[in-house]
């Protein structure tokens, strides 16, 4: 742990099994206390994801579009997005709606934390891709970035990826919601998210950057996401 050796990718931190266990427990508690600690959610994902990430990676390898993503390693960054080009796209296309989502909710794809505690650089990319695609999930599901929207997306992602962090977030996220929202969540939103998650193909296998012009409705149909309630 002392020197700079043993780093598989920039930002990689080698942690012992004891440290990973402590990190998992500590980040879970920290995220529960303050759900806006995105860094803690990220750490939780990395330290608990080790069993699931290889499955996700294999799903990508077995799909032609997914394996292209693994090879080309695209990153979603404001610098590489042609923002004005996206703005000019017709209403209802993925690119236009994604941009609208970013601006309405005042978020940026650049705030996604890079992976630190994953000990395989391909798996580090997989979890990175999952994080960067999260905003596109919001767009495809039509969910805003408030607590309720985030919980719905987490349910969808939990079913899709099986990442323990998503499962925990889906299970414990609703703690911060009031009764009225919980009702809507339980009766309409969660069942829809779960059904869509089960029905849909693996969302990590879509090369979103090559589909900006595709209408959102058509992409939803292609993937297998049911229209939002």
């Amino acid at each position: 742990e002392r020197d700079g050796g043993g780093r598989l990718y920039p930002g990689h931190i080698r942690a012992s099994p004891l440290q990973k266990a402590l990190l998992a427990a500590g980040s879970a508690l920290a995220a529960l206390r303050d759900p806006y600690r995105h860094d803690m959610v990220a750490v939780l994902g990395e330290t608990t994801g080790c069993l699931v990430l290889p499955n996700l990676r294999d799903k990508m390898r077995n799909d032609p579009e997914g394996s292209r993503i693994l090879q080309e390693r695209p990153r979603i960054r404001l610098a590489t997005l042609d923002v004005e080009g996206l703005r000019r796209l017709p209403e209802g296309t993925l690119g236009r709606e994604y941009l609208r989502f970013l601006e309405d909710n005042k978020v940026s794809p650049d705030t996604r934390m890079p992976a630190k505690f994953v000990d395989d650089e391909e798996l580090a990319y997989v979890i990175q891709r999952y994080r960067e695609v999260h905003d596109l999930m919001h767009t495809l599901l039509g969910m805003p970035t408030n607590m309720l929207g985030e919980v719905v997306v987490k349910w969808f992602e939990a079913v899709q990826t099986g990442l323990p962090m998503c499962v925990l977030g889906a299970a414990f996220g609703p703690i911060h919601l009031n009764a009225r929202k919980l009702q809507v969540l339980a009766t309409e939103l969660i069942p829809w998210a779960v059904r869509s998650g089960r029905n849909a193909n693996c969302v990590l296998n879509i090369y979103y950057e090559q589909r900006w012009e595709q209408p959102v409705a058509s992409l939803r149909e292609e993937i297998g996401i049911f229209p939002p309630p």
Partner: protein
Amino acid sequence: VYQVFESVARKYDVMNDSMSLGIHRVWKDVLLHKMNPSPGTLLLDVAGGTGDIAFRFINYVRSVRERQLRRKLKHHQNLSWQEIADSYQEEAIKPLGDSQVVVCDINTEMLKVGRQKAEHLGYSEGLSWVVGNAEELPFGDEKFDVYTVAFGIRNVTHIDLALQEAYRVLKPGGRFLCLEFSQVTNPVLSRLYDLYSFQIIPVLGEIIAGDWKSYQYLVESIRRFPPQEEFKEMIEDAGFLKVDYQNLTSGIVAIHSGFKL
């Protein structure tokens, strides 16, 4: 080093409490008792960032002053009411008895946190906050009665220069006091301490401050610092006399003391 402390400044106090389980407060109290300052002392606290030593100094001097005034009153049984009222006024005007502490730190973020803490806790007079480098202090020669550096000197690139500067700014008769991490004397405890330092502290840094790397650096800098005897010799090299040290908590920290005579 500067960037490490910039990111660390905000959460500094929380991390100190978490890492040392609050024991750092005891260590600092011991430092003040060893110093035993009397009212009228001029203290320079270097790398004092968030003000822990400075506030303790003020509290100590204030209580010494109160005791002084009360003792004076007791001795003069035949005081007139006017004289008694005057001495209460004296206590009100000069609660510190002209004692002063200058907190000097290279990092403006740490000083900012310190100033905010002072305001929050109600410390107003006798305190100054100055930006400065321990290797080249912005003060004239022979200005201070006591020079302290608590958990700061291990971060200085040229420790010998800092010690020389300490010697320069102290008045003749002045005292140098350093509270710093040192080498653990007991081999069993040393193993446990290493385990704790390398396994737990970076994790705490990540969870509490979102900063693994800074606390990894901290743990490494502690290991690199010279052990008790070697540091004692360095202090003697700078010209200090009657240099000795006191181990606390089996050598996890040590207080080194020297005089400019």
